[in-house]
């Protein structure tokens, strides 16, 4: 680096003053001092000559030709449609945000579509039945059970759980339930155990008519 030595304070001072003397913003005193210093210092004289050349080069008009009238027409057109023109201005700076929102929207739409297809393919019959619906026709292996009126709900539930039975119908007008054994339980065993259980007034297999 060929920057003046720090020991040469006058050259440093001259270096600092040059830009402001060149743009006429230095005080008269600064200007006169620099003029005197340049008369004695060849190095600073060379530097100042180069600074003058730099200033001259920087003052040349732009070397890129742009028609001001064309630009102004575009700007005035933009003022006439502020919303339409402001939108792309904003969208440039928030482009990533718009893209992210569009991506999220697409993912949501695809997910909803996939869910719809899945529900449609599982069929229209729900996995539950309301009490107002017609009872499901009895199937083979079901048992009709009449618990005692004094039997508590907790005891009834515990019994069904122990015998691995589930209620598929009832209670009807006389308080009879239709229960069906779960997959691994045999109807005969369940029937026998029901009949021996205290609190069960009746346990009979359902006769299915073809």
């Amino acid at each position: 680096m060929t920057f003046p030595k720090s020991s040469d304070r006058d050259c440093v001072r001259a270096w600092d003053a040059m830009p402001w003397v060149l743009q006429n913003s230095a005080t008269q005193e600064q200007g006169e001092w620099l003029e005197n210093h340049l008369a004695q210092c060849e190095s600073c004289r060379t530097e100042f000559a180069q600074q003058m050349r730099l200033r001259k080069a920087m003052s040349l008009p732009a070397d890129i030709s742009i028609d001001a009238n064309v630009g102004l027409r575009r700007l005035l057109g933009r003022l006439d449609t502020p919303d339409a023109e402001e939108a792309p201005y904003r969208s440039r700076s928030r482009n990533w945000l718009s893209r992210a929102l569009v991506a999220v929207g697409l993912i949501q739409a695809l997910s909803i579509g996939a869910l719809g297809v899945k529900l449609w393919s599982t069929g229209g019959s729900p996995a539950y039945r309301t009490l107002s619906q017609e009872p499901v026709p009895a199937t083979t292996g079901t048992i009709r059970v009449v618990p005692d009126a004094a039997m508590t709900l907790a005891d009834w539930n515990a019994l069904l759980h122990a015998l691995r039975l589930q209620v598929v119908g009832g209670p009807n007008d006389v308080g009879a339930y239709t229960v069906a054994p779960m997959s691994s339980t045999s109807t005969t065993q369940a029937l026998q155990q029901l009949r021996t259980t205290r609190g069960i007034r009746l346990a009979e297999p359902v006769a299915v008519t073809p």
Partner: protein
Amino acid sequence: MNDDDIDADVTDRMLLQRMSTGDRAALSVLYRSYHGRLCRFLSRLTRRPDVIEEVINDCFWVAWQKAGSFHGDSRVSTWLMGIAYRCGLKALRQHGDEPVEDDPQSEQRTGDHDLDEDRELRDWLSKGLDHLSVDQRVVIELVYGVGHTLDDVAVIMQCPVGTVKARLFHARVKLRNVLPALAGDSPKHKENAP
């Protein structure tokens, strides 16, 4: 600030005040008045004419919107340059990965009316500025090209005066080291350059 600068600022403030009431004629006057210096200022950031025009229009779009809120804390020229600088940086971020080569047609247009001496000066300067960072080029343009003070540049670049001083110092040292060696190059050599 000399008398001419003061007169120019008074005129600019009047134009801004008219702009704040929706006067498009005032906008047109201010636009034409600053177009040349903004073109040169922004050409230190990018060589793409389309981007420069876009930034100038973005700058005046903001000025049009905010003319009423200009409180006169600085000169109008300082305020406008600050807007242009920020719009220019935003454009650089958006178009930074795009080609920024010189437009040959533009060079040809400029070259038609350029004197040989001016062309040589431009070439010399251009090669020197290639060694500087964007912020250093901006400081050099604002101080040597436009004639702003350190305080003005600090307002435009929204940074402390000490930062401006450091950028100016490093830019000058770099130019001091490279410009003398470039002085001997003639513009004709550019055609043979890789």
